[in-house]
């Protein structure tokens, strides 16, 4: 059993408070992805779980046993460091074999495992190289390999794919999913890549400034963000936010015009709220239940398979609109936009989502 339980974890570096009252339960075999802005404490949390850093307060349980006092070596976890931390004096092979040698595994078995991992990570050619002779992505893969060969009960990954190219990343993602499925390890995975988070996670944990903001299944978090922060953080480009005020059961947008309140949401008259609509839900043209407003294309980001239009609508921020495929719009072209009420999220003055009754 390798479930992981964090109770009231807090951490300060001197006066800097980095984690606050973190409560998290990860079931045995679960794949949890940790996301959050840079510097919010993700690495610190992993390091505390690993036993490399001592929490200022709180308890850690692994497999039901409190491991506060258990040194890192005995917690039975594997970790991929954000900084790799490869042993510079060892070859790639040795780097990966080191952990296995520590368990007195027979030599042939070690070789087999390392070769298997190396093949999977496309490092086969490089086994005799030292880290200094590797490219950034190759180093990162060695770091992954080093953790993988151990097949531990709990994996901690700190942005393990950040330096890989898209194709390789997709491949690795698949491999990790396969690995997860095959050895049924518990995994905690830090990433900045939305796709990774959405595709790999059983549950996503969104952190901000040392606090867990929301925990939930990927689509739940995507579809039902608990607050403004999560709504803005999950999804890229981020959700568009519009200031609005409730007015007779409808919403008056600061951008001008009115829109229906989303179904099931009742607001006190005059309540100041924020309406959030994701770029892919902003309608070009008209939408039922919403007065259209005009925007001028300011940036037209064409990604090939899809495009994002950054439109100026007289608001503080541009409204981002997703448009599938490629388009012929030019900067300055004016388009009509509307917010389909069925797709809108409403957040109250404190940034908390207003749920349909």
């Amino acid at each position, binding site marked *: 059993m390798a479930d992981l339980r964090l109770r009231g974890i807090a951490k300060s570096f001197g006066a800097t408070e980095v984690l606050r009252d973190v409560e998290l339960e990860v079931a045995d075999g679960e794949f949890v992805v940790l996301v959050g802005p840079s510097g919010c404490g993700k690495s610190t949390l992993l*390091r505390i779980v*690993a*036993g*490399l850093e001592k929490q200022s307060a709180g308890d850690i349980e692994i497999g039901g046993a409190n491991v506060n006092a258990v*040194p*890192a*070596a*005995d917690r*039975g*976890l*594997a*970790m991929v*460091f*954000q*900084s*790799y*931390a*490869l*042993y*510079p*004096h060892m070859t790639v092979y040795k780097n990966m074999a*080191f*952990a296995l040698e*520590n*368990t007195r595994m027979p030599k042939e078995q070690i070789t087999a495992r390392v070769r298997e991992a190396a093949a999977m990570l496309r490092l086969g050619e490089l086994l005799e190289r*030292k*880290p*200094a002779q590797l490219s*950034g992505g190759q*180093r990162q893969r060695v770091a992954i390999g*080093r953790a993988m060969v*151990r097949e531990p009960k709990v994996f901690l990954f700190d942005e393990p794919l950040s330096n890989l190219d898209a194709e390789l990343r997709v491949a690795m993602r698949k491999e990790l999913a396969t690995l997860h499925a095959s050895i049924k390890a518990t995994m905690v995975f830090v990433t900045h890549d939305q796709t990774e988070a959405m595709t790999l996670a059983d549950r996503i944990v969104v952190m901000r400034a040392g606090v867990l903001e929301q925990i939930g299944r990927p689509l739940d978090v995507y579809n039902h963000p608990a607050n403004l922060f999560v709504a803005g953080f999950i999804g890229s480009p981020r959700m568009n936010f519009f200031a609005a005020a409730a007015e007779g059961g409808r919403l008056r947008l600061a951008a001008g015009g009115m829109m229906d309140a989303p179904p099931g949401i009742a607001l006190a008259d005059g309540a100041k709220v924020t309406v959030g609509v994701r770029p892919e839900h902003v309608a070009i043209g008209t939408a039922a239940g919403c007065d259209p407003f005009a925007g001028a294309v300011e940036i037209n980001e064409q990604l090939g398979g899809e495009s994002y239009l950054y439109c100026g609508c007289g608001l503080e921020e541009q409204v981002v609109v997703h448009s599938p495929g490629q388009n012929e719009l030019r900067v300055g072209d004016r388009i009509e936009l509307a917010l389909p009420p069925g797709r809108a999220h409403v957040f109250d003055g404190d940034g908390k989502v207003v749920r349909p009754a």
Partner: protein
Amino acid sequence: MISRLLHFLGRGRGTGGRPHVTDVLTWLYLALGVFLMFAPVLWLGLSSFKTQAGLIEYPPTLAPLEQITVPVEGYDEPLPLFRVTGEDGVVRELAQVRRVGIISLMVDPAAPAERIKVPIDSIEKVREVKLAFENYAYPIAKLNFLGYLGNSVFVTVAATAITLVINSMAAFGLAIYRFPGRNVALGLVIGTLMFPLTIILVPTYLIVTELGMTNSLWGVILPGAATPTGVFLLRQYMLTIPGELIEAARLDRASEWQIYWRIVMPLALPALAVLAIFSVIWRWNEFLWPLIVLNRSENFTLQIGLHSFSGEFYTRWNYLLAMTVLTLLPVLFVFGWLQRFITTGIASAGIK
């Protein structure tokens, strides 16, 4: 001069393929170094082939010279050859038969019948380069050279091995961990650095005696094994090893012992090499302490052995130098081998 040299280390480089001013200065510095550091040593090598008389001769000659002797008809022994400046300024080479006071009695080797009287201030020895190999041959034959060599090798190897192991362990403990008592231990190490061995020679000897290690090579080896210098040196070097490597190793389930010998030791290799070189030289050349601990010749190290050529009034410099040169060779070899480890800078490549 210092500021100029500092300046040169800092100068930007000129364009083009030609050697830059820093390169020129580097070479100048190295040339100066070779001259200052190496020329005296060259002299040492040459001098080890001089006779005792040649060694203390002033003004000194660079090459080992010896007076030429020539066989002269009618004389049993070969006669020493001199260059004689006649009153007329003519220079001749004559062999000296005998000297009486300030008059030298000479013969022309070509015409041995006639004897010539010459005042000694007009004669000068004719000399040639001659290597006095007996400087080497005699001591080797006389001393129990192989025995001494064996003892020295044993002392050096054993002491260096022990020093490296226990010092690196202590340095590891002091560099990697934070634990109660660490500062005390550190203070002890540094505090005791202050006392030269010379000062505690006598009490240390008493302790060695109590332990029954006099006249044993262990009595030479053990007392110096825990050098504060070594601990200090290694510890400071180990501080530069990135901490994440140690964390990574802990997560790889390495025991602390393995972290020590598989991670930290290889990464501290340059400093270990320095310490090894230092220890080898020190043990190999150590003189005062073995002198006091050892008084049986079967236990003598080379240094003690070769110093038996230094007496109360008289030191056989020619033997001493020759043996010095001879004993230098192994350490030189060891240095050549170990110094390469000093420049295997590796410690940083694994960290982003």
